[in-house]
Protein backbone atom coordinates (compact mmCIF):
# COMPACT_ATOMS: atom_id res chain seq x y z
CA UNK A 1 0.00 0.00 0.00
CA UNK A 2 2.56 2.54 1.17
CA UNK A 3 6.21 1.84 0.78
CA UNK A 4 9.08 4.04 1.84
CA UNK A 5 12.26 3.10 0.03
CA UNK A 6 15.74 4.28 1.04
CA UNK A 7 14.63 7.75 1.95
CA UNK A 8 16.90 10.57 3.10
CA UNK A 9 15.19 13.68 4.41
CA UNK A 10 15.76 16.54 6.81
CA UNK A 11 15.42 20.22 7.59
CA UNK A 12 17.52 22.57 5.49
CA UNK A 13 21.00 21.07 5.42
CA UNK A 14 20.52 18.83 8.44
CA UNK A 15 19.69 15.27 7.48
CA UNK A 16 17.39 13.43 9.89
CA UNK A 17 16.28 10.31 8.04
CA UNK A 18 19.05 8.04 6.73
CA UNK A 19 18.28 5.53 4.07
CA UNK A 20 15.03 4.65 5.74
CA UNK A 21 12.76 1.94 4.35
CA UNK A 22 9.47 0.58 5.64
CA UNK A 23 6.08 -0.66 4.53
CA UNK A 24 2.57 0.09 5.68
CA UNK A 25 0.60 -2.93 4.56
CA UNK A 26 -2.90 -2.63 3.24
CA UNK A 27 -5.63 -2.75 5.84
CA UNK A 28 -3.09 -3.04 8.66
CA UNK A 29 -2.20 -0.80 11.52
CA UNK A 30 1.54 -0.29 11.43
CA UNK A 31 3.02 1.05 14.62
CA UNK A 32 6.14 3.22 14.69
CA UNK A 33 7.99 3.59 17.95
CA UNK A 34 11.35 4.94 18.98
CA UNK A 35 13.01 7.38 21.36
CA UNK A 36 12.35 11.11 21.31
CA UNK A 37 14.03 12.73 18.39
CA UNK A 38 14.40 9.48 16.45
CA UNK A 39 12.70 11.02 13.44
CA UNK A 40 9.23 9.49 13.70
CA UNK A 41 7.39 12.74 13.11
CA UNK A 42 9.89 13.67 10.44
CA UNK A 43 9.11 10.44 8.61
CA UNK A 44 5.38 11.14 8.59
CA UNK A 45 6.04 14.70 7.44
CA UNK A 46 8.29 13.40 4.68
CA UNK A 47 5.58 11.03 3.51
CA UNK A 48 3.11 13.90 3.45
CA UNK A 49 5.55 16.17 1.64
CA UNK A 50 6.02 18.69 4.45
CA UNK A 51 9.68 17.72 4.59
CA UNK A 52 11.50 17.32 1.30
CA UNK A 53 13.19 14.02 0.58
CA UNK A 54 16.63 14.20 -0.95
CA UNK A 55 16.92 10.49 -1.83
CA UNK A 56 14.73 7.47 -2.31
CA UNK A 57 11.07 7.14 -3.12
CA UNK A 58 7.72 6.96 -1.40
CA UNK A 59 5.30 4.74 -3.23
CA UNK A 60 1.60 4.75 -2.62
CA UNK A 61 -0.24 2.01 -4.49
CA UNK A 62 2.81 1.67 -6.69
CA UNK A 63 3.00 5.35 -7.58
CA UNK A 64 5.81 7.63 -6.40
CA UNK A 65 4.19 10.42 -4.42
CA UNK A 66 7.34 12.05 -3.07
CA UNK A 67 7.18 14.93 -5.52
CA UNK A 68 3.44 15.63 -5.29
CA UNK A 69 2.40 18.82 -3.51
CA UNK A 70 1.06 18.00 -0.04
CA UNK A 71 -2.46 19.27 -0.57
CA UNK A 72 -2.97 16.84 -3.45
CA UNK A 73 -2.34 13.84 -1.24
CA UNK A 74 -5.75 14.41 0.31
CA UNK A 75 -7.32 13.76 -3.09
CA UNK A 76 -5.44 10.44 -3.15
CA UNK A 77 -7.10 9.51 0.11
CA UNK A 78 -4.23 10.22 2.52
CA UNK A 79 -4.98 12.03 5.77
CA UNK A 80 -2.56 13.25 8.41
CA UNK A 81 -2.91 13.83 12.13
CA UNK A 82 -0.14 16.13 13.31
CA UNK A 83 1.60 15.62 16.63
CA UNK A 84 0.94 19.20 17.65
CA UNK A 85 -2.45 20.80 18.17
CA UNK A 86 -3.79 21.68 14.75
CA UNK A 87 -7.39 22.77 15.17
CA UNK A 88 -8.25 26.18 13.72
CA UNK A 89 -8.80 27.99 17.00
CA UNK A 90 -10.87 30.87 15.64
CA UNK A 91 -13.19 28.67 13.63
CA UNK A 92 -16.17 26.91 15.14
CA UNK A 93 -16.12 23.19 15.57
CA UNK A 94 -18.60 22.90 12.75
CA UNK A 95 -16.38 24.95 10.45
CA UNK A 96 -13.35 22.89 11.46
CA UNK A 97 -15.15 19.70 10.57
CA UNK A 98 -16.49 21.08 7.32
CA UNK A 99 -12.98 21.91 6.18
CA UNK A 100 -12.19 18.23 6.57
CA UNK A 101 -14.52 17.74 3.61
CA UNK A 102 -12.69 20.32 1.46
CA UNK A 103 -11.84 17.67 -1.14
CA UNK A 104 -15.51 17.18 -2.04
CA UNK A 105 -16.87 20.56 -0.97
CA UNK A 106 -19.10 20.79 -4.04
CA UNK A 107 -21.11 17.76 -3.01
CA UNK A 108 -23.32 19.44 -0.41
CA UNK A 109 -25.24 16.32 0.43
CA UNK A 110 -22.15 14.28 1.10
CA UNK A 111 -20.73 17.02 3.31
CA UNK A 112 -23.86 17.10 5.47
CA UNK A 113 -23.94 13.34 5.58
CA UNK A 114 -20.34 13.14 6.78
CA UNK A 115 -20.94 15.87 9.34
CA UNK A 116 -23.88 13.99 10.79
CA UNK A 117 -21.85 10.79 10.86
CA UNK A 118 -19.11 12.52 12.87
CA UNK A 119 -21.56 14.09 15.26
CA UNK A 120 -23.06 10.67 15.84
CA UNK A 121 -19.66 9.21 16.57
CA UNK A 122 -18.41 12.04 18.80
CA UNK A 123 -21.01 13.45 21.09
CA UNK A 124 -18.75 16.18 22.58
CA UNK A 125 -18.43 17.76 19.19
CA UNK A 126 -22.16 17.75 18.61
CA UNK A 127 -22.82 19.62 21.84
CA UNK A 128 -20.25 22.29 21.08
CA UNK A 129 -20.68 22.49 17.32
CA UNK A 130 -21.03 26.28 17.25
CA UNK A 131 -18.29 27.08 19.74
CA UNK A 132 -14.82 28.15 18.75
CA UNK A 133 -12.38 25.27 18.62
CA UNK A 134 -9.76 27.23 20.53
CA UNK A 135 -11.95 27.11 23.62
CA UNK A 136 -12.01 23.32 23.88
CA UNK A 137 -9.87 21.24 26.24
CA UNK A 138 -6.78 19.48 24.95
CA UNK A 139 -8.49 16.11 24.74
CA UNK A 140 -11.51 17.58 22.99
CA UNK A 141 -9.24 19.23 20.45
CA UNK A 142 -7.61 15.88 19.74
CA UNK A 143 -11.03 14.36 19.26
CA UNK A 144 -11.96 17.13 16.85
CA UNK A 145 -8.74 16.61 14.90
CA UNK A 146 -9.45 12.93 14.54
CA UNK A 147 -13.03 13.54 13.46
CA UNK A 148 -11.89 16.21 11.00
CA UNK A 149 -9.35 13.80 9.57
CA UNK A 150 -12.07 11.20 9.04
CA UNK A 151 -14.38 13.67 7.29
CA UNK A 152 -12.62 13.17 3.99
CA UNK A 153 -13.20 9.39 3.92
CA UNK A 154 -9.47 8.65 3.78
CA UNK A 155 -7.98 5.36 2.69
CA UNK A 156 -4.66 5.84 4.41
CA UNK A 157 -4.00 7.59 7.71
CA UNK A 158 -0.74 9.00 8.98
CA UNK A 159 -1.19 9.44 12.70
CA UNK A 160 1.29 11.09 15.06
CA UNK A 161 0.70 10.35 18.74
CA UNK A 162 -3.08 10.17 18.78
CA UNK A 163 -3.33 9.58 22.51
CA UNK A 164 -0.91 12.24 23.72
CA UNK A 165 -2.60 14.26 26.41
CA UNK A 166 -5.72 12.14 26.49
CA UNK A 167 -7.07 10.50 29.62
CA UNK A 168 -6.78 6.69 29.59
CA UNK A 169 -10.48 6.28 28.97
CA UNK A 170 -10.59 8.63 25.98
CA UNK A 171 -7.31 7.22 24.73
CA UNK A 172 -8.82 3.77 24.74
CA UNK A 173 -11.82 5.03 22.82
CA UNK A 174 -9.54 6.64 20.29
CA UNK A 175 -7.58 3.42 19.81
CA UNK A 176 -10.80 1.53 19.37
CA UNK A 177 -12.05 3.96 16.78
CA UNK A 178 -8.75 3.85 14.89
CA UNK A 179 -8.66 0.07 15.13
CA UNK A 180 -12.22 -0.10 13.87
CA UNK A 181 -11.24 1.87 10.80
CA UNK A 182 -9.47 -1.21 9.52
CA UNK A 183 -12.88 -2.75 8.96
CA UNK A 184 -13.63 0.07 6.54
CA UNK A 185 -10.55 -0.88 4.57
CA UNK A 186 -8.33 1.89 5.90
CA UNK A 187 -4.58 1.51 6.23
CA UNK A 188 -2.92 3.17 9.21
CA UNK A 189 0.63 4.23 9.92
CA UNK A 190 0.79 5.38 13.50
CA UNK A 191 3.46 6.81 15.75
CA UNK A 192 2.79 6.10 19.37
CA UNK A 193 5.04 6.11 22.42
CA UNK A 194 2.44 4.39 24.50
CA UNK A 195 3.32 0.94 23.23
CA UNK A 196 1.66 -1.00 26.06
CA UNK A 197 -1.77 0.27 25.08
CA UNK A 198 -1.40 0.54 21.36
CA UNK A 199 0.34 -2.72 20.60
CA UNK A 200 -2.86 -4.71 21.02
CA UNK A 201 -4.44 -2.84 18.15
CA UNK A 202 -1.46 -3.08 15.84
CA UNK A 203 -0.35 -5.52 13.19
CA UNK A 204 3.25 -4.54 12.54
CA UNK A 205 5.79 -2.70 14.63
CA UNK A 206 8.82 -0.74 13.44
CA UNK A 207 11.41 0.68 15.78
CA UNK A 208 13.12 3.84 14.63
CA UNK A 209 16.47 4.95 15.99
CA UNK A 210 18.49 7.92 14.80
CA UNK A 211 16.68 8.21 11.54
CA UNK A 212 16.62 4.59 10.43
CA UNK A 213 14.67 1.44 11.14
CA UNK A 214 16.43 -0.66 13.74
CA UNK A 215 13.92 -3.51 13.78
CA UNK A 216 10.69 -4.72 12.26
CA UNK A 217 8.34 -7.36 13.62
CA UNK A 218 4.81 -8.60 13.80
CA UNK A 219 2.85 -7.05 16.61
CA UNK A 220 1.71 -10.40 17.93
CA UNK A 221 5.31 -11.50 18.49
CA UNK A 222 6.09 -8.32 20.32
CA UNK A 223 3.00 -8.51 22.43
CA UNK A 224 3.80 -12.06 23.55
CA UNK A 225 6.96 -10.97 25.32
CA UNK A 226 6.38 -7.28 25.60
CA UNK A 227 8.47 -6.72 28.68
CA UNK A 228 11.77 -8.05 27.42
CA UNK A 229 11.29 -6.65 23.98
CA UNK A 230 10.58 -3.20 25.25
CA UNK A 231 13.60 -3.32 27.50
CA UNK A 232 15.96 -4.56 24.85
CA UNK A 233 14.73 -2.21 22.13
CA UNK A 234 14.37 1.00 23.91
CA UNK A 235 16.75 2.31 26.43
CA UNK A 236 14.30 4.97 27.52
Amino acid sequence: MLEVKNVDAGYGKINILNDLSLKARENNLTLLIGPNGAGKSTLLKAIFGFVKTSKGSIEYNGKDISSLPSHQLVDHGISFLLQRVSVFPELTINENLKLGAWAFKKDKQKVTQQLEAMYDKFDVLKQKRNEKAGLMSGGQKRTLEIARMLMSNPKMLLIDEPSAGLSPKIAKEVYQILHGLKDDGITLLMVDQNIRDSIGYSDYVYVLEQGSVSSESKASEVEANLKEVVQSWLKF
Partner: protein
Amino acid sequence: MDFLVPLLAQLTNGLIIGFIYALMALGLTLIFGVLKVINFAHGEFYMLGAYISYIASRMLGLHPIIGIIAAVAVVFIIGMLMEKALLTPIYEDKVERKDEYALLITFGLSIFLMNGALVVFGPYQKSPEPLASGVLDLGVLSVSSGRIYAVVLAIIFMAATLFIINKTWLGTALRALSQDRDASTIMGINAKTLGSIAFGLGAAMAGAAGALLAPVFLVFPIMGVVPAIKSFVIIILGSMGSIKGAIYGSLLLGIVESLGVFFLSPSYRDGYSFLLLIIILLVKPKGLFGGSQWNN
Protein backbone atom coordinates in the same frame (compact mmCIF):
# COMPACT_ATOMS: atom_id res chain seq x y z
CA MET B 1 -23.46 77.26 18.23
CA ASP B 2 -22.28 78.66 14.95
CA PHE B 3 -19.40 76.27 14.72
CA LEU B 4 -21.62 73.21 14.92
CA VAL B 5 -22.67 73.14 11.29
CA PRO B 6 -19.18 73.34 9.81
CA LEU B 7 -18.02 70.81 12.40
CA LEU B 8 -20.81 68.50 11.34
CA ALA B 9 -19.84 69.00 7.72
CA GLN B 10 -16.23 68.13 8.53
CA LEU B 11 -17.25 65.03 10.45
CA THR B 12 -19.51 63.85 7.63
CA ASN B 13 -16.69 64.28 5.20
CA GLY B 14 -14.31 62.50 7.53
CA LEU B 15 -16.68 59.57 7.85
CA ILE B 16 -17.19 59.38 4.10
CA ILE B 17 -13.47 59.22 3.45
CA GLY B 18 -13.16 56.89 6.43
CA PHE B 19 -15.46 54.36 4.81
CA ILE B 20 -13.43 54.33 1.65
CA TYR B 21 -10.18 53.98 3.57
CA ALA B 22 -11.87 51.14 5.42
CA LEU B 23 -12.19 49.34 2.11
CA MET B 24 -8.52 49.82 1.42
CA ALA B 25 -7.45 48.88 4.94
CA LEU B 26 -9.64 45.79 4.81
CA GLY B 27 -7.67 44.71 1.78
CA LEU B 28 -4.38 45.24 3.59
CA THR B 29 -5.62 43.33 6.61
CA LEU B 30 -6.85 40.48 4.43
CA ILE B 31 -3.40 40.17 2.87
CA PHE B 32 -1.68 40.40 6.22
CA GLY B 33 -4.04 37.91 7.84
CA VAL B 34 -3.54 35.21 5.25
CA LEU B 35 0.01 35.80 4.07
CA LYS B 36 1.53 37.46 7.16
CA VAL B 37 2.99 40.04 4.84
CA ILE B 38 2.53 43.80 4.75
CA ASN B 39 1.92 44.88 1.21
CA PHE B 40 3.99 48.02 0.71
CA ALA B 41 2.64 48.30 -2.82
CA HIS B 42 -0.91 48.70 -1.55
CA GLY B 43 -1.01 52.37 -2.50
CA GLU B 44 0.03 51.51 -6.03
CA PHE B 45 -2.87 49.08 -6.42
CA TYR B 46 -5.05 51.99 -5.32
CA MET B 47 -3.39 54.11 -7.99
CA LEU B 48 -3.85 51.40 -10.63
CA GLY B 49 -7.53 51.17 -9.78
CA ALA B 50 -7.88 54.91 -10.23
CA TYR B 51 -6.10 54.90 -13.60
CA ILE B 52 -8.14 51.97 -14.85
CA SER B 53 -11.38 53.73 -13.98
CA TYR B 54 -10.02 56.85 -15.66
CA ILE B 55 -9.14 54.95 -18.83
CA ALA B 56 -12.51 53.22 -18.89
CA SER B 57 -14.60 56.31 -18.30
CA ARG B 58 -12.64 58.99 -20.16
CA MET B 59 -10.76 57.18 -22.88
CA LEU B 60 -13.16 54.34 -23.66
CA GLY B 61 -16.26 56.31 -22.81
CA LEU B 62 -17.75 53.64 -20.56
CA HIS B 63 -20.12 54.33 -17.68
CA PRO B 64 -18.23 55.18 -14.45
CA ILE B 65 -19.72 52.16 -12.68
CA ILE B 66 -18.27 49.90 -15.35
CA GLY B 67 -14.97 51.70 -14.89
CA ILE B 68 -15.02 50.84 -11.20
CA ILE B 69 -15.88 47.21 -11.85
CA ALA B 70 -13.13 47.00 -14.46
CA ALA B 71 -10.71 48.47 -11.93
CA VAL B 72 -11.61 45.82 -9.37
CA ALA B 73 -11.30 42.98 -11.86
CA VAL B 74 -8.03 44.07 -13.45
CA VAL B 75 -6.33 44.88 -10.14
CA PHE B 76 -7.45 41.52 -8.77
CA ILE B 77 -5.70 39.75 -11.62
CA ILE B 78 -2.57 41.90 -11.41
CA GLY B 79 -2.45 41.33 -7.65
CA MET B 80 -2.70 37.58 -8.04
CA LEU B 81 0.03 37.49 -10.65
CA MET B 82 2.33 39.67 -8.56
CA GLU B 83 1.86 37.43 -5.54
CA LYS B 84 2.69 34.37 -7.62
CA ALA B 85 5.74 35.99 -9.15
CA LEU B 86 7.19 37.69 -6.08
CA LEU B 87 6.01 36.18 -2.83
CA THR B 88 6.06 32.42 -3.42
CA PRO B 89 9.73 32.03 -2.35
CA ILE B 90 8.62 32.86 1.19
CA TYR B 91 6.56 29.70 1.41
CA GLU B 92 9.17 27.50 -0.18
CA ASP B 93 11.68 28.38 2.52
CA LYS B 94 13.94 29.95 -0.07
CA VAL B 95 14.51 33.22 1.75
CA GLU B 96 16.16 33.68 5.10
CA ARG B 97 14.47 36.76 6.49
CA LYS B 98 10.92 36.47 5.27
CA ASP B 99 9.51 39.70 6.66
CA GLU B 100 12.41 41.70 5.34
CA TYR B 101 12.15 40.06 1.94
CA ALA B 102 8.41 40.70 1.68
CA LEU B 103 8.88 44.25 2.85
CA LEU B 104 11.62 45.08 0.38
CA ILE B 105 10.15 43.31 -2.60
CA THR B 106 6.70 44.87 -2.23
CA PHE B 107 8.45 48.21 -1.77
CA GLY B 108 10.36 47.54 -5.00
CA LEU B 109 7.07 46.76 -6.68
CA SER B 110 5.68 50.03 -5.39
CA ILE B 111 8.59 52.02 -6.80
CA PHE B 112 8.28 50.19 -10.10
CA LEU B 113 4.53 50.74 -10.47
CA MET B 114 4.61 54.34 -9.30
CA ASN B 115 7.36 55.32 -11.71
CA GLY B 116 5.94 53.12 -14.43
CA ALA B 117 2.73 55.14 -14.20
CA LEU B 118 4.81 58.30 -14.39
CA VAL B 119 6.40 57.06 -17.61
CA VAL B 120 3.12 55.96 -19.16
CA PHE B 121 0.74 58.67 -18.02
CA GLY B 122 3.01 61.57 -17.13
CA PRO B 123 2.90 63.53 -13.88
CA TYR B 124 -0.31 65.43 -14.63
CA GLN B 125 -3.45 65.11 -12.58
CA LYS B 126 -6.33 63.55 -14.42
CA SER B 127 -9.96 63.39 -13.46
CA PRO B 128 -12.24 60.49 -14.30
CA GLU B 129 -15.93 60.90 -14.87
CA PRO B 130 -17.65 61.34 -11.49
CA LEU B 131 -20.36 58.91 -10.49
CA ALA B 132 -22.87 61.72 -10.21
CA SER B 133 -22.93 65.47 -10.23
CA GLY B 134 -24.81 67.86 -8.02
CA VAL B 135 -25.22 67.94 -4.28
CA LEU B 136 -27.48 66.21 -1.85
CA ASP B 137 -29.20 68.59 0.56
CA LEU B 138 -29.43 67.15 4.05
CA GLY B 139 -31.04 70.17 5.66
CA VAL B 140 -28.26 71.75 7.69
CA LEU B 141 -25.50 70.49 5.45
CA SER B 142 -25.11 69.35 1.89
CA VAL B 143 -22.86 66.65 0.50
CA SER B 144 -21.89 66.12 -3.11
CA SER B 145 -23.84 63.20 -4.50
CA GLY B 146 -20.72 61.78 -6.12
CA ARG B 147 -19.32 61.19 -2.64
CA ILE B 148 -22.54 59.62 -1.42
CA TYR B 149 -22.47 57.16 -4.31
CA ALA B 150 -18.84 56.40 -3.59
CA VAL B 151 -19.61 55.59 0.05
CA VAL B 152 -22.57 53.44 -0.85
CA LEU B 153 -20.44 51.48 -3.29
CA ALA B 154 -17.65 51.18 -0.73
CA ILE B 155 -20.10 49.75 1.78
CA ILE B 156 -21.42 47.31 -0.81
CA PHE B 157 -17.90 46.14 -1.62
CA MET B 158 -17.13 45.72 2.07
CA ALA B 159 -20.32 43.80 2.70
CA ALA B 160 -19.51 41.53 -0.23
CA THR B 161 -16.04 40.90 1.14
CA LEU B 162 -17.34 40.17 4.61
CA PHE B 163 -19.87 37.80 3.10
CA ILE B 164 -17.16 35.95 1.22
CA ILE B 165 -14.96 35.72 4.28
CA ASN B 166 -17.62 34.60 6.71
CA LYS B 167 -20.07 32.58 4.70
CA THR B 168 -18.34 30.81 1.83
CA TRP B 169 -16.00 27.87 1.48
CA LEU B 170 -13.36 30.18 0.11
CA GLY B 171 -13.67 32.47 3.11
CA THR B 172 -13.57 29.63 5.63
CA ALA B 173 -10.46 28.32 3.94
CA LEU B 174 -8.87 31.76 3.98
CA ARG B 175 -9.57 32.11 7.67
CA ALA B 176 -8.21 28.63 8.27
CA LEU B 177 -5.10 29.47 6.29
CA SER B 178 -4.56 32.60 8.35
CA GLN B 179 -4.61 30.53 11.53
CA ASP B 180 -2.62 27.45 10.58
CA ARG B 181 -1.00 26.94 7.22
CA ASP B 182 0.07 23.31 7.67
CA ALA B 183 -3.28 22.26 9.08
CA SER B 184 -4.98 23.87 6.07
CA THR B 185 -2.75 21.90 3.72
CA ILE B 186 -3.74 18.73 5.51
CA MET B 187 -7.35 19.55 4.67
CA GLY B 188 -6.32 19.51 1.02
CA ILE B 189 -6.39 23.29 0.74
CA ASN B 190 -3.92 24.59 -1.81
CA ALA B 191 -2.27 27.22 0.34
CA LYS B 192 -0.34 28.78 -2.53
CA THR B 193 -3.34 29.32 -4.76
CA LEU B 194 -5.44 30.63 -1.90
CA GLY B 195 -2.59 32.91 -0.91
CA SER B 196 -2.60 34.40 -4.40
CA ILE B 197 -6.37 34.79 -4.27
CA ALA B 198 -6.13 36.53 -0.91
CA PHE B 199 -3.50 38.91 -2.26
CA GLY B 200 -5.57 39.52 -5.38
CA LEU B 201 -8.68 40.24 -3.31
CA GLY B 202 -6.79 42.58 -1.01
CA ALA B 203 -5.25 44.41 -3.95
CA ALA B 204 -8.65 44.62 -5.67
CA MET B 205 -10.08 46.31 -2.60
CA ALA B 206 -7.36 48.93 -2.79
CA GLY B 207 -8.12 49.24 -6.49
CA ALA B 208 -11.80 49.74 -5.72
CA ALA B 209 -10.97 52.45 -3.19
CA GLY B 210 -8.77 54.18 -5.76
CA ALA B 211 -11.47 54.04 -8.40
CA LEU B 212 -14.06 55.37 -5.96
CA LEU B 213 -11.94 58.26 -4.75
CA ALA B 214 -10.47 59.10 -8.15
CA PRO B 215 -13.05 61.76 -9.04
CA VAL B 216 -12.64 63.35 -5.59
CA PHE B 217 -8.85 63.44 -5.24
CA LEU B 218 -7.83 63.18 -8.94
CA VAL B 219 -5.50 60.67 -10.52
CA PHE B 220 -1.71 60.93 -10.63
CA PRO B 221 1.23 58.52 -10.21
CA ILE B 222 2.01 59.18 -6.56
CA MET B 223 -1.59 59.42 -5.43
CA GLY B 224 -1.31 56.12 -3.55
CA VAL B 225 1.42 57.10 -1.12
CA VAL B 226 -0.66 58.92 1.46
CA PRO B 227 -3.69 56.57 1.38
CA ALA B 228 -1.33 53.62 1.73
CA ILE B 229 0.29 55.08 4.79
CA LYS B 230 -3.14 55.81 6.17
CA SER B 231 -4.21 52.23 5.72
CA PHE B 232 -1.03 51.13 7.48
CA VAL B 233 -2.04 53.41 10.32
CA ILE B 234 -5.53 51.96 10.32
CA ILE B 235 -4.52 48.34 10.50
CA ILE B 236 -2.08 49.05 13.30
CA LEU B 237 -4.78 51.02 15.10
CA GLY B 238 -7.19 48.16 14.62
CA SER B 239 -4.66 45.40 15.36
CA MET B 240 -2.99 43.83 12.36
CA GLY B 241 -5.09 41.22 10.64
CA SER B 242 -8.31 42.01 12.48
CA ILE B 243 -11.23 42.76 10.21
CA LYS B 244 -13.40 44.47 12.75
CA GLY B 245 -10.40 46.52 13.79
CA ALA B 246 -9.77 47.68 10.24
CA ILE B 247 -13.30 49.02 9.92
CA TYR B 248 -13.41 50.75 13.32
CA GLY B 249 -9.88 52.02 12.79
CA SER B 250 -10.84 53.68 9.51
CA LEU B 251 -13.81 55.44 10.98
CA LEU B 252 -11.74 56.58 13.95
CA LEU B 253 -9.10 57.90 11.60
CA GLY B 254 -11.71 59.75 9.53
CA ILE B 255 -13.03 61.41 12.68
CA VAL B 256 -9.61 62.27 14.12
CA GLU B 257 -8.62 63.84 10.82
CA SER B 258 -11.70 65.97 10.54
CA LEU B 259 -11.45 67.09 14.15
CA GLY B 260 -7.81 67.98 13.59
CA VAL B 261 -8.72 69.92 10.50
CA PHE B 262 -11.47 71.72 12.32
CA PHE B 263 -9.78 72.56 15.60
CA LEU B 264 -6.11 72.70 14.64
CA SER B 265 -5.03 73.33 11.09
CA PRO B 266 -6.37 72.05 7.79
CA SER B 267 -2.99 71.89 6.08
CA TYR B 268 -1.80 69.19 8.49
CA ARG B 269 -4.71 66.87 7.62
CA ASP B 270 -2.44 63.99 6.67
CA GLY B 271 -0.12 64.51 9.62
CA TYR B 272 -2.68 63.73 12.32
CA SER B 273 -3.01 60.12 11.33
CA PHE B 274 0.75 59.59 11.22
CA LEU B 275 1.11 61.14 14.61
CA LEU B 276 -1.71 58.96 15.86
CA LEU B 277 0.19 55.93 14.57
CA ILE B 278 3.36 56.79 16.42
CA ILE B 279 1.45 57.44 19.62
CA ILE B 280 -0.46 54.17 19.33
CA LEU B 281 2.72 52.24 18.70
CA LEU B 282 4.22 53.76 21.80
CA VAL B 283 1.36 53.20 24.19
CA LYS B 284 -0.54 50.24 22.79
CA PRO B 285 1.59 48.44 20.22
CA LYS B 286 -0.92 45.63 19.75
CA GLY B 287 -3.56 48.04 18.48
CA LEU B 288 -6.70 49.38 20.07
CA PHE B 289 -8.71 46.27 19.48
CA GLY B 290 -5.87 43.86 20.35
CA GLY B 291 -6.51 40.16 20.48
CA SER B 292 -7.37 37.54 17.98
CA GLN B 293 -7.29 37.85 14.24
CA TRP B 294 -10.31 37.50 12.03
CA ASN B 295 -12.35 38.26 15.06
CA ASN B 296 -15.64 39.25 13.56
